[in-house]
């Protein structure tokens, strides 16, 4: 499994997933909880708009100077005895990790949650090598046990499952005999996972932000699993997207403050860890060997384009948590491990329009995403830019739509055409009109009237009334 998680057409996925009433209830409930918590946390911090602007400024600065900070980060990781590998593609990244794992004769690998390793499909590569790979984030662990069910959300990956479903998975895979109480389920997972941590050869983590000045990587979790992944195994491999850098700890402070509040409405998560390379002399724990894999996989092609701001993303999912489209269709409909507004912008850039050209249209451009984004990515504008590229540069729009829009362009800009069209509309629609409504419209109205009534065009248009009104006629 890599970034693309299914073969189905977007429309079919949507129709199928919208039947899943449990998923929809779970998503709606989670959205409302997370949105309220985020707004409360932002209010509690105060000056939220200033914080957002500051966050945006930091992210823009890093992207504009990414070569510089990548160099600084690399030098500082190496200074502390860590290895750095820059992977241009997913294949390069996977090959490097596989090589490290094989050189250590690694058999058991524990992983902390990482979207970029999902994006490059690392688990599958390692499993094909004969390794046992264990996800230790509880949500990811549940999905892995459930026949590698893909994540449906970037922060809470198992959002689409309820506790009864989780109990059934545990019963089947872990010989679990207790109830569906979350505490009992979590305790059971914790006991199982503890054994895995203690016996793992290799630990693999993602990276929320790398700090260039010190060569540190930071990990933000609530479960503490990332600390065990990075403290117990002898070898640690951290995989990060190339854009996830901050210059210093000062900027880390700002971005973590925005991240935890935006993602889960917490001032801080239970664990925020900064790790600087392998175990140094005198350190009580930590890996003997540390590898940092910096993944490009299409990101550098976004730099310098009109889509660059998407790389500001800090993966908080605030946009997903307010998206009224995601609310009804769930994460799996997007066919990408990156769902929701951020996914609809990022996925076509990383994975191409062939597979993902429907995603930018899965939005009403309501701008709830843009409003929620803590680093001010203009998400709805980027969705619109995608549409423009699809229509104007790629020429991928259906012919019928192109013709309709051409006609619209001519008609809307011309008084004679607009005037005649709007005047004739009432008469033309008359055969379809009953009680001033159209219930079964022809042509382009069909799709509308399958769902809703369409108003019959006014016999007297507003402009006709106004002419009379101006002369002191009917309106007075």
């Amino acid at each position, binding site marked *: 499994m890599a970034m693309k998680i299914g073969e189905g057409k977007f429309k079919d996925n949507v129709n199928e997933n919208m039947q899943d009433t449990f998923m929809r209830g779970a998503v709606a409930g989670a959205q409302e909880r997370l949105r309220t918590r985020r707004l409360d946390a932002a209010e509690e911090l105060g000056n939220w708009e200033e914080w957002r602007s500051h966050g945006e400024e930091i992210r823009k600065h890093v992207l504009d100077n990414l070569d510089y900070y990548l160099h600084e980060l690399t030098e500082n990781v190496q200074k502390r005895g860590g290895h750095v590998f820059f992977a241009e593609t997913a294949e390069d990244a996977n090959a490097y990790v596989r090589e490290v794992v094989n050189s250590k004769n690694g058999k058991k690998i524990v992983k902390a949650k990482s979207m970029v390793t999902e994006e490059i499909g690392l688990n599958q590569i390692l499993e094909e090598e004969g390794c046992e790979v264990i996800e230790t984030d509880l949500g990811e662990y549940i999905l892995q046990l459930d026949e590698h069910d893909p994540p449906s959300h970037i922060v809470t990956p198992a959002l689409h499952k309820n506790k009864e479903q989780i109990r059934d998975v545990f019963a089947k895979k872990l010989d679990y005999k207790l109830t569906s109480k979350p505490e009992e389920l979590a305790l059971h997972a914790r006991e199982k996972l503890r054994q895995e941590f203690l016996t793992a050869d290799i630990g693999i983590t993602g990276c929320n932000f790398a700090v260039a000045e010190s060569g540190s990587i930071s990990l933000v979790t609530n479960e503490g699993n990332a600390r065990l992944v990075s403290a117990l195994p002898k070898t640690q491999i951290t995989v990060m997207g190339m854009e996830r850098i901050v210059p210093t700890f000062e900027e880390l402070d700002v971005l973590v403050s925005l991240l935890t509040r935006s993602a889960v409405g917490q001032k801080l998560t239970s664990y925020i860890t900064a790790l600087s390379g392998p175990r140094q002399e005198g350190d009580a724990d930590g890996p003997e060997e540390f590898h940092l894999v910096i993944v490009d996989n299409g990101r550098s092609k976004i730099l310098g384009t009109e889509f660059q701001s998407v790389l500001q993303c800090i993966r908080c999912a605030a946009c997903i948590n307010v998206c009224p489209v995601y609310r009804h269709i769930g994460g799996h409909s997007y066919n990408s491990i990156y769902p929701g507004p951020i996914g609809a912008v990022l996925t076509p850039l990383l994975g191409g329009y062939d597979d993902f050209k429907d995603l930018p249209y899965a939005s009403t451009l309501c701008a709830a995403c843009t409003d929620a984004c803590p680093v001010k990515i203009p998400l709805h504008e980027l969705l619109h830019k995608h549409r423009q590229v699809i229509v104007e540069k790629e020429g991928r729009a259906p012919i019928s739509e192109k013709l309709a829009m051409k006609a619209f*362009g001519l008609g809307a800009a011309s008084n004679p055409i607009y005037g005649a069209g709007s005047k004739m509309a009432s008469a033309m629609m008359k055969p379809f009109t009953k009680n001033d409504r159209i219930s079964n419209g022809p042509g382009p109205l069909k799709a509308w009237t399958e769902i809703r009534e369409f108003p019959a065009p006014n016999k007297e248009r507003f402009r006709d009334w106004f002419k009379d009104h101006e002369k002191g006629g009917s309106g007075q």
Partner: protein
Amino acid sequence: MTLLYGVNKVKVTLFITCIVDMFQADVGKATVEVLERLGCEIEFPMGQVCCGQPAYNSGYVEESKDAMKKMIATFEHAEVVVTPSGSCATMFKEYQHIFHDDPVWRPRAEKLASKTYELTEFIVDVLKVEDVGAKLNGVATYHPSCHMTRLLGVKDAPMTLLKNVKGLKFEPLPNAHNCCGFGGTFSVKMGNISKQMVDEKVDSAEMSGADFLIGADGGCLMNIGGRIERRGKPIRVLHIAEVLNSR
């Protein structure tokens, strides 16, 4: 220009929107009558067409530019432009960005943006009127449309005016912030999703217990109203101009 209510007549150039022109003439009439009652002199340039939003939002930027230029040329002489739609007002403000690299049209678009107002914003912020003397008996709920609140930034003006309508009680609309599922061509292109979104909006309106669902954007109201009619719900959909014109 002097904007002193009751002293000098304020000359308002009305951008009625194509939806109101063709389908919601009553909303247009109400807009004119409310503004005239508040001392405005209304001018309606017959050259106005559509603002171009349907094509623009679908990605047909070049195809929609002629309509935009036509609108700029039609309205640039105005002292103020007022429109009973948050979304269409937003589009007028968007022109300056669309023509960002055009040395001729950009300054003209900027000028237009600086004098364009959504109806309730104009009444509250420019005319400085909070009570238009309207009267309507019943229970209402309000749907804040997305472009008006998030892009245009007009959040408080509609409720400021509605709270002063005599006889009208308000119940909150659950999850009011969620889009109604209109989104222009989205409503037909992604009809399956749109249906779920508008159904949730209709359910929320029903849950509020309101007799009236009030909004300030023709597109959203056509969507929500059309679904309410199809489902046969006893809720009346009203544009805010119609409410403000109720006596």
